[in-house]
């Protein structure tokens, strides 16, 4: 209960602070739009308990997003990036079974962005949350032969995931990066981001037992940003 009160109070403070700042800022009201693409690294977080030979391993994927940023001040902006994440991870059971899990997610991170530095090169840190949904997925399964038990095991089998696997996806996200301005209207952005999943990527059971699995994501993206597209305030 104390935690919840602190979270609510903190959030109210942050929002009121942002609006108080933006009212008096001459540089506020700049909207920029762009494209981000890059590498994604998915680390599944599962407590395997006694099952020591159930091994969940990370895998590489890709991310593509359309960042939208609204500058309240030259040092502060709100940032959102609707995008597609292609997440891969691996799973192995003992010596006889391996699986690669592929999933597509539509996610929208919404972050507060704090920038610093000069006019041509600026650093920034972002923090916020994300929400989205699982779109599609498939699993490449490989069962190895076990003499006397699983004879003549076939190679890989692809299982398409169906609607029952649809799930809400949400969590916290933070990042840092550099923004290089080639001129006043175009900039390049290099960013590292960390996603901390708070919703299980595995169906939870309703009976009180939890078999939760979470995703920790890291992304490194390169993007282009078109600035001052819709400047809503003049200096």
């Amino acid at each position, binding site marked *: 209960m104390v*935690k919840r009160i*602190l*979270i609510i109070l*903190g*959030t109210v*403070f*942050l929002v009121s*602070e942002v609006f108080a*700042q933006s009212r008096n800022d001459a540089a506020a009201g700049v909207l920029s739009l762009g494209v981000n693409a890059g590498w994604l690294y998915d680390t599944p*977080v*599962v*407590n*395997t*308990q*006694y*099952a020591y*030979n*159930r091994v969940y391993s990370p895998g590489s994927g890709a991310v593509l997003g359309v960042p939208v940023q609204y500058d309240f001040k030259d*040092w502060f902006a709100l940032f959102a990036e609707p995008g597609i994440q292609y997440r891969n991870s691996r*799973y192995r*059971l*003992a010596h*006889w*079974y391996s*699986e690669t899990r592929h999933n597509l997610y539509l996610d929208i991170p919404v972050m*507060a962005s704090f920038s610093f530095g000069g006019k041509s090169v600026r650093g920034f840190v972002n*923090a916020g*949350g994300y929400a989205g949904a699982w779109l599609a997925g498939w699993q490449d*399964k*490989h*069962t190895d032969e*076990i003499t006397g*038990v*699983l*004879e*003549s*095991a*076939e*190679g*890989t*089998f692809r299982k398409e995931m169906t609607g029952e696997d649809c799930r809400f996806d949400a969590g*916290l996200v*933070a990042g840092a990066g550099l923004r290089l301005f080639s001129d006043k209207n175009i900039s390049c952005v290099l960013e590292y981001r960390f996603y*901390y999943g*708070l919703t*299980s990527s*595995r*169906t939870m*059971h*309703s*009976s*009180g*037992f*939890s*078999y*939760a699995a*979470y995703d920790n994501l890291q992304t490194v993206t390169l993007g282009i940003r078109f600035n001052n597209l819709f400047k809503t305030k003049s200096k």
Partner: protein
Amino acid sequence: MNMKRSACFGAVIITVVALLSSSCRKLEHDITNPDCTESILQFVDNGYAGQFKKIWQGIDVGYVFWNWDTTDWDAVYTTYLPVFESADARVCNGQVGMSEEEYETTWKSILSPLMDNHMNVSLTRPDIGGKIFHFAPSKRRLQRSDYHRRFTKKEHLSSLYSMIDDHRLDAVMDTVTVKTSQGNDGYLVNGIINGNIAYLYISSFMIYTPDSSSADTIARSFVLNWLGNTFNENLAGAILDTRNNTGGLGHWQQFLGQFFCEEEFIPYYKMVKSDVGRYDYAAPVNQVIKPNAGHRLMSDDCPLVCLFDLNSASNGEEIPWMFSYLPGYVGIGERTLGAMGGLVDNQYSTFYSGSFGDQSLGSKDTFTSSDKCSYSCSMSTFAHVDSKTGICPEGTGMIPQIEVLLDTTAMFSGNGDNQLLEAVKYIKNLKNRQ
């Protein structure tokens, strides 16, 4: 923004993020090992509810039939957990947690809807110990209107030879007895009926001895002799009899199937669990039967009649299932038990499915201090799925094309075998029509 204000702003953000992250992920230790890892004392402490949770979760994670079984396993949890918690409360008040009758009725209600006919659960009351209760969903067969007990070797052979003696059956038969891995006598009968119908009976596929005088080798030689002596150009048909056969080692499918196919075929595939989710299955493993160079193809004119009954189980019904993929197959008898899942003993840490708990409880009636834990659960490690239709026949069994119920009065008195006579009649009628 001044420095003080910036620091305050950053501190609040970090606090909110830290609080959110610490409060939302749930990685508690909910997956417990249902296998024997705890002392008897801990089981007593865990009580009725603890025992129920262990078995419920062991089945939840390791049961291979969730893809087909319609039992609402979550409802089982929410319905019965309060029942066992009440029992624990009574124990705390110095009373007996559950009477024998209540304990038995409750567990029977929990387990009997499950479709795994290989499942056997044995357990004892945590506060009392003593009597071990045994539960098996396959006991639903007792409710069948056509149910009959298994016939004995003596009844079977007496019936066979009495029919030969009084000329109801024109046959020459040979019998061999072999030891099964359970220490019982298994036996095979081969012969020729009417001079042109090959007949083979196998009472068990659990034929295995590790020594040099292998029962398996003896049984295989017996089958090879039968094939060599009876499969000639005059053959009118063959009868493979797996009635009363409760199964055994899987390699018998390849051994028997290889003589009747000209190219490899897949009668079914096996589905094994791969992860904790109910629907997490590994890649299907095909059961491939490969031909032997000296194979003999059967046909509608020269059929292979598989004779099976309601006591044919596991490999005893999977072998007729395999032959149903081959030309000339005709099934005669009674619908089989429907226990076609595969068993793999003592491999819980390899598959995280199949059997868990102290397996020795399954053959005991009384719990002792030397037992490792208060329960055992034995269940299928993989599911058998029809490779053509994707249907899992567990609980349904092999359905004969021509149903012939056993005349138990004749068989149990050693005076006749109407199912065998019907199979012979089918082939004779076919021959007469040609």
